[in-house]
């Protein structure tokens, strides 16, 4: 807890949380939203294709969309760490935060499996199952993220 307090009291963390600057908390939150849209949105598009809702598009070129998906992932990893630093003492003891992290880890792991199998030599028979799992994991992660503003120790404006 001492460590968390130290992190939270760092000048940078304090500035993000308290400066009121539009480049502080609000910008980081915006980047977190844009990252979410890229990561989850492109993941959804690939999932919908695999499930069969986008017709008979060839699958292989979808690989070109993945850099944008990973751009979203890194945007959110970085902005997420900053948001965590700003409210370390509350978020790190909130069970919902760990549920969110677990769901994201599973979702990202699932994305890497989909990518590897989809663009490997043989198109997997369980592609649809993986795609449905992906959709449900992302819905779960989003729900957990939102609930962090309502359940457990809640910090500041969300």
């Amino acid at each position, binding site marked *: 807890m001492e460590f968390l307090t130290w992190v939270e009291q760092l000048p940078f963390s304090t500035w993000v949380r308290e400066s009121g600057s539009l480049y502080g908390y609000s910008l980081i939150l915006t980047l977190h939203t844009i990252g979410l849209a*890229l990561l989850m949105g492109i993941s959804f598009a690939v999932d919908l294709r695999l499930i069969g809702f986008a017709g008979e598009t*060839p699958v292989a*070129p979808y690989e070109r969309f993945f850099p944008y998906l990973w751009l979203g992932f890194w945007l959110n990893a970085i902005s997420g760490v900053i948001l965590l630093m700003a409210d370390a003492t509350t978020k790190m003891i909130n069970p919902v935060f760990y549920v969110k992290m677990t769901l994201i880890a599973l979702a990202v792991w699932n994305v890497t499996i989909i990518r590897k199998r989809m663009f490997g030599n043989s198109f997997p028979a369980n592609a649809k199952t993986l795609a449905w799992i992906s959709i449900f994991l992302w819905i779960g992660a989003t729900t957990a993220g939102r609930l962090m503003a309502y359940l457990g120790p809640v910090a500041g404006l969300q």
Partner: protein
Amino acid sequence: MVTFLDPFATWIQTTQLAFVMRDNQWLWAFCETVHFLGLAMMVGAIGALDLRMLGVAKQIPMRPLHRLVPWGIAGFVANLTTGIMFYSADATQYTHNIAFQFKMLFVLLAGVNVLYFYGAKVSQRVEALGPGADAPMSAKVVAASSLFLWFGVMYWGRMLPFIGTAF
């Protein structure tokens, strides 16, 4: 600045919907979650189409990719619905919130962009694009505008509690 909307805002604020939204924190949280999923669906479907027109993943022919559009529309409808629900709860505040005004302006411009895409038949020229084919410049402008406007909508949405009078 937008005082002509005040009677509407005052009215919607006193509807049953507004009361339910204000009294029910969990309904609010649920709607927020749906709003996020809706925006991801829009970016996933419309954004993928925009990227293709701009030259990313050119090997995908346009016609099948266009079949993602109904999912983008579904995301928009989900966000319009939940958006009206949020708005009703605190309509006067939102109406006069500069971030909200910009958000709505960007949504309207994005709508005009869509009308141009289909109305000026840019969509038809794009539909026919096979694997590897480059989109015409008009389509690229539409695609770039679409990405700029929708990410702008997200920016203004996030700014609601930070710019202007909100909460």
